[in-house]
């Protein structure tokens, strides 16, 4: 540990020196790094796919769609837009301040810490780094020890493609994170669970370090079967694809549970079965298209959730598990007890509870009774329901008639609210996430207003009152002595 402490000290020192030298401020430098990230992913696509398969059993298509392709696109966007993003924003000042000018410039925070999660270890590491670099910061990455092969690959590749004096990688688990958090950072970006998010924020508070926390929650999916009946096949496909086709449900924006009217539940379940079979065949374990559960510990957690006898009794599809292969079959539950563990913590696995309601309108109240999730999904064409969902619930985001795809839309800020997180990124929001918006006002030394200065008197008070009201005409009258006072 002493050696690790020394490494961290040294790394921080070097990054701070590099930042102070101004090298990372240059747009040229930033673009070079972003270009290098694209190159790094392109050159090593196969190696990256391999480690994702080793750590998570992720299929190369999933790996590309959710991680590698995503990162390349993100870096390309930043590269193409950076010249625009760095332009100062002009602010209009009231006439009274003429000829002063105002603007806001985005300046890098300085030295930034990125702590990423294990489920999308490449994209959740590189995407925030893209934002940090685009904004001109130096950055240190600690990837998750639960995806050790991905972490090791990043630790090997990043130094050979990027500027090692400004961009560093450290590997390790909670003990290393603890050492890192004892230091003062200019910004911390964390992706992970709310429980750890609290620890990170408390550590950041010691140094007044601003944080962005991308956490999780139970993302509900509302199915309003009345209004989407003719597209129900698509609905079921999309939900299945979103739940089981992306890291086996181990994603912060995965469908956690479904809300549907009682009358439609059994039809719905019957529609899921053939879709799941069409995706993963008769023996999903051997399909190669289903990611594994990341570790034994996580497997045991899911096992515990399912082994609650009342939950077990609600299994209507799947339920088989293989600890050695870290495999959990795509599983559907029908109305597990609402006070069971599985309905009170983020599932983060391939188990899908279906909760039935008398009327789909009740879904609003149901969602509101739980902590604010990262995403709410609703399959509906009912304008009224859409409006109610938007105005009566709160979540990081809302997607109608699809799932997860909001992640790909880089014009939309991606982030949580309440227990699901604070701050946001993607596209320009990544740049802003890692920038301090500095206000600049420039006044003129050419003229001065006596009314600004003591000793105070009624004239000056009236002048200033009028000035504040932008009552320019009355101001002129006052100065010409054509009016005495101001109605208070």
């Amino acid at each position, binding site marked *: 540990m002493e050696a690790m402490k020394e490494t961290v000290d040294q790394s921080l020192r070097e990054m701070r020196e590099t930042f102070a030298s101004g090298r990372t401020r240059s747009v040229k430098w930033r673009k070079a790094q972003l270009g290098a990230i694209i190159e790094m992913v392109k050159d090593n696509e196969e190696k990256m796919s391999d480690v994702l398969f080793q750590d998570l059993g992720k299929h190369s298509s999933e790996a590309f769609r959710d991680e590698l392709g995503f990162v390349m696109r993100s870096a390309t966007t930043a590269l193409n837009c950076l010249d625009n993003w760095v332009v100062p924003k002009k602010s209009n000042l009231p006439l009274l301040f003429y000829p002063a000018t105002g603007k806001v410039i985005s300046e890098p925070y300085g030295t930034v810490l990125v702590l990423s999660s294990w489920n999308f270890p490449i994209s959740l590491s590189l995407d925030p780094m893209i934002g940090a670099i685009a904004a001109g910061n130096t950055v240190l990455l600690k990837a998750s020890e639960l995806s050790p092969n991905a972490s090791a690959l990043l630790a090997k590749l990043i130094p050979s493609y990027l500027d090692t004096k400004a961009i560093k990688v450290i590997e390790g688990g909670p003990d290393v994170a603890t050492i890192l958090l004892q230091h003062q950072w200019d910004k911390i970006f964390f992706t992970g669970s709310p429980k750890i998010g609290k620890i990170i924020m408390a550590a950041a*508070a010691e140094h007044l370090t601003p944080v962005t926390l991308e956490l999780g929650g139970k993302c509900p999916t509302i199915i309003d079967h009345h209004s989407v009946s003719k597209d129900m096949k698509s609905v079921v496909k999309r939900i299945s694809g979103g739940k089981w086709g992306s890291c086996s449900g181990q994603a912060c924006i995965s469908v956690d549970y479904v809300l549907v009217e009682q009358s439609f539940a059994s039809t719905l379940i019957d529609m899921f079965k053939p879709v799941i079979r069409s995706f993963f065949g008769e023996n999903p374990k051997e399909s190669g298209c289903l990611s594994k559960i990341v570790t034994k510990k996580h497997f045991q957690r899911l096992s515990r959730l399912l082994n609650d006898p009342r939950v077990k009794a609600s299994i209507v599809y799947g339920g088989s598990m293989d600890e050695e292969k870290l495999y959990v079959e795509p599983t559907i539950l029908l109305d597990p007890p609402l006070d069971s563990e599985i309905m009170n913590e983020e599932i983060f696995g391939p188990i899908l509870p279906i909760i039935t309601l008398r009327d789909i309108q009740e879904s609003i109240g149901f969602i509101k009774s739980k902590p604010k999730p990262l995403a709410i999904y609703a399959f509906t064409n009912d304008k009224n329901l859409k409006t109610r969902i938007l105005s009566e619930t709160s979540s990081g985001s809302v997607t109608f008639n699809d799932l997860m795809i909001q992640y790909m839309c880089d014009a939309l800020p991606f982030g949580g609210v309440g227990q699901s997180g604070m701050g946001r990124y993607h596209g320009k929001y990544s740049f802003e996430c890692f920038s301090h918006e500095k206000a600049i006002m420039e006044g003129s030394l050419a003229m001065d207003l006596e009314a600004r200065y003591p000793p*105070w008197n009624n004239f000056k008070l009236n002048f200033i009152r009028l000035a504040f009201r932008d009552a320019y005409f009355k101001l002129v009258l006052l100065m010409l002595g054509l009016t005495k006072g101001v109605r208070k």
Partner: protein
Amino acid sequence: MSKLEEAFISVIVDRSAMAKIFQMADASNLVTELRRNFDAGVTRGYEWRVTQLKKLLVICDKHEPEIVSALHDDLGKPELESSVYEVALLRNSIKLALKQLKDWMAPHKAKTSLTTFPASAKIVSEPLGVVLVISAWNFPFSNSRIGRIIMTAAAKHLTPVSLELGGKSPVVIDSDTNLKITVRRIISGKWGCNNGQACISPDYILTTKEYAPKVIDALKKELEAFYGNNPMGSKDTSRIVNLNHFDRLSKMLEEKEVSNKIVYGGQKNRENLKISPTVLLDVPLDSLIMSEEIFGPLLPIVTLNNLEECFGVINSRPKPLAAYLFTKNHKLKKKFTKTVSAGGIVVNDTAVHFTLPTLPFGGVGESGIGSYHGKFSFDAFSHKKSVLFKSFLGDSAIRYPPYSRRKLGLLKTLVNSNLVDTFKVLLGLS
């Protein structure tokens, strides 16, 4: 007693003066009621918000004399400062909000791309819910020690925070400036603003050894013009807020190697909580007065051999809430605004940026997190919710398992948003 309670209580000199102590149960009831009303949707409507803002305006309009009187009792604040910096500013802020609220509340369309086609997207501003505002002008809430305590408490509930803290706002004076105007604006921002007890008060001056005597002379002249030759008797400056802070400032003045550096002022009256406008020259950089935010009517001048050295001095210290520069030199202005990190920077004036609703007001590093004023206030208390509307058209098999090379190829082209390549793959040509 929690650290938070201790910190709050430590500034109240006379503990017995606390009549009723606010307990946990009181807080619980308050929050429950507020949450209930929020959940009922009372505050969401445009009309409700407008009504509340208008009522605030009524307070400004009808009760200004009482506000001025209260501020005079609390701080000895001159009427003009209260009317201008407190009431008029507030009135303007409310009026701006009333004028722009509809715009601010409107959803903001966002572009979608080929990867999410066909879709439409928008960003909706929604209220965060139940919010706690702990206000300043009452010590010690404008300081970073308390900021840490607040943020640590907020972390337990993952509550986002905006922290408007403080710092030592430096003023750099270049010898090419218009000295009279410079000095008047510094005095106005320092002693004319709650007697230096403001988060953006100029804290200390940086100028060359050569220029310093001119600066001191100009300060003396203008200070006398503003406050007369008996500044202790002037009604145009606020007094020090309480004994705690009076003693804190006295301690700064009385420190060895500091007390002999006073070049103007230095008079104190503990009974009246008054300290006269005081200027010091070249106190030690590690003295108390140069290590903590002064928050009072003391203005140290630190001299440099060369004005360029100011960057080293400023950047070696915690980032301040504001940094000021007086110069006509374009190169220096550019370097300053680019390399000095502070909440906000004002060139050729002090403190006035506080009154501008079009500039975000907030700190960085030790001086704070988040910003407000104008639309930035609306944003500070909103969650920007992303909303994506998709249709059922174009449900492509490439999204779903079982995965294949062809699907992967198509995915790749889609991700790169390359229409030509996409068609090629679709047609099996690639």
